[in-house]
């Protein structure tokens, strides 16, 4: 009897590996091997263009990126700057909008559909076309209905700053679709009875937000943080991506491109580890894992 049981268990275990197999193959072929090869490549450089003849160059590519290349560091910094400024704003706004949408309002379906729409154009070329056409510059000003007189009153320099901030915000808004949905899903998951009992104890909406909603949303905030970071680092409008692509395929410096790719990857990796470590104590997990 017991022997047969073990046999079954073993069979089941094997079945588990069968299910994972497609992923393991895909991972090996399309992720792991290229990643390792890319690391190896970053210590080499193409010398013969025709048949990709490679030559070992040691740490030269990394040296080039950090010391010689005048473009890499400024681009890298601007990408990091964008991510650092945009990510918290995206998180705050999407949480704010999700909370508004979670109210029992009329036309909820319409609003939800509307707020997800920019994802359809999100990072695609269509968005680039729209941005070239100047959409995004005055959207928020029109949307909120700020009268021109306000800008006149503020004076040219200050109004320019405000204007730039508003256009930046507009583009940030258009990147919040997926995050809003994730937050909404999370908000729906919080049990109503928690709020009910808090109300009975005389808690205000404000208190309930800080004591119930926010703590219970921390896992989703973390998920969104990771998603937003990764998203902003791999966005098509991200100039770093364009630069790496040009280096590899226009200038045929594949080793150098791989090196830059790895610097980029290591940066994201370290950043996310820092995020995980520093937020570990703040995250509230409910229920069993």
């Amino acid at each position, binding site marked *: 009897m017991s022997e047969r049981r073990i046999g079954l268990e073993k069979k*089941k*275990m094997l*079945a*588990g*590996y069968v*299910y*994972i197999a*497609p*992923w*393991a193959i*895909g*991972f090996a*072929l*399309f*992720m792991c*091997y*290229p990643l390792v090869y890319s690391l190896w490549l970053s210590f080499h450089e193409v010398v013969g263009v025709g048949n*990709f003849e490679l030559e070992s160059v040691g740490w030269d590519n990394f040296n080039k990126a950090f010391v010689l290349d005048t473009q890499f560091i400024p681009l890298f910094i601007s990408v990091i700057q964008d991510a650092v400024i945009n990510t918290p704003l995206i998180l705050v706004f999407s949480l704010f909008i999700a909370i*508004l949408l979670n109210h029992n309002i009329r036309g909820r*379906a319409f609003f939800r559909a*509307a*707020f*997800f*729409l*920019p994802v*359809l*154009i*999100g*990072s*695609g*070329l*269509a968005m*680039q*076309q*729209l941005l070239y*056409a100047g*959409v995004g510059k005055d959207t928020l000003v029109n*949307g*909120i209905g700020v009268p021109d007189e306000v800008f006149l009153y503020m004076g040219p320099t200050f109004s320019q700053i405000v204007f730039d901030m508003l256009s930046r915000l*507009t583009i940030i808004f*258009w990147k919040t679709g997926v995050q809003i949905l994730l937050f909404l*899903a*999370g908000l*729906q*998951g919080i049990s109503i009875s928690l709020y009910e009992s808090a*109300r009975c104890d005389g808690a*205000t909406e404000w208190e309930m937000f800080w004591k119930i909603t926010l703590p219970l949303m921390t*896992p989703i905030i973390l998920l969104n943080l990771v998603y937003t970071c*990764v998203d902003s680092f791999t966005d*098509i409008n991200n100039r770093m*991506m364009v630069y790496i*692509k040009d280096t*590899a*395929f226009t200038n045929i410096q*594949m080793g150098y491109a*791989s090196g830059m*790719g790895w610097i*980029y990857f290591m940066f*994201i*990796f370290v950043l996310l580890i820092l995020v995980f470590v520093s937020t570990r104590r703040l995250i509230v997990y409910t229920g069993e894992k």
Partner: protein
Amino acid sequence: MKSIPIPKSKQQLTAAKQTAVGSKVKAIRNNSLVSRIGSKSRWISLIYRTFVYVILIDLAFVFLYPFIYMVTTSLKHPVDLMDFTIKWIPTSMAWENLYYGMKGLQFMTHFNNSALIAVLSVIGQVLSCSFIAYGFARIKFPGREALFFLCMFTMIIPPQTIIVPLFMQYKTMGWLDSVLPLIVPSFFGNGLRGALFIFIFRQLFRGLPWELEDAARVDGCGSFKVYWKIILPLTPPAIVVTTLLSLVWHWNDFFEPSIYLTSEEKFTLPMMLPRLYQSLDTLTGSSFEVFSLPVVMAATFMALLPMLLVYFFLQRYFIQGVERSGLVE
């Protein structure tokens, strides 16, 4: 204290869900507190609700703006475009913009390319990611957690890091300038954000009751049959979410197609957008640069139209799906 008078519809909604204890609590609250605070808090509630609506409508405008702009601009004659008093509604509809836009994109050819890549990738990702997720969610085996961590870890690998080796790999495999590099990884749970979809499916599968599976197994179902006949049909929310996101991301993807596809007749629809002027110039034999914004917008709109239509039909299920897919535990 503004929260005490709950809006009527919400009250009804929650009342339906509440147990006897809950409704008793509500009754107490209604009797004592509301009467004490009375009309003052009703005013606050009204102001609060108005405020919420104003913000929502404002924000909805901001979110819809690119679409409204795209549609109205694409229907403008050049004359209307220059006239700044005409902001939204053109004096006459310039339908020919759409025609030129379609011509410039060579719509049918590139629509077929895009559709082929997107649809096959979606099928691949839905099938493979759910299959893999079933293994991660419902079968215990040694090393499962580590493998799952590795799988999630692939989410943060930027495509530009591995693009060069992949390019060389596909070159030796002879896959360049074909749709294979864009489709095949999807069937192995990779492709665009495959790990995210595995995560979505796994979250949902984990929440399903074990009794279902046990019953099926007692009746002699193998694990594949359990996955295919029981678990997968129970998860339309995750399937809709995955389908729509995967479709949109593959449709809009530019980075990978622009590297793997080299001959123009194989380009995807969005890849034609930057070539629009060029293609229109050769088409009409004249320079389209002047007053071409409406045509560009018309073409952009056409390139997005399939996604808009799909979203229009799926959005109800999609949003329900996100709420129920247990994306978040």
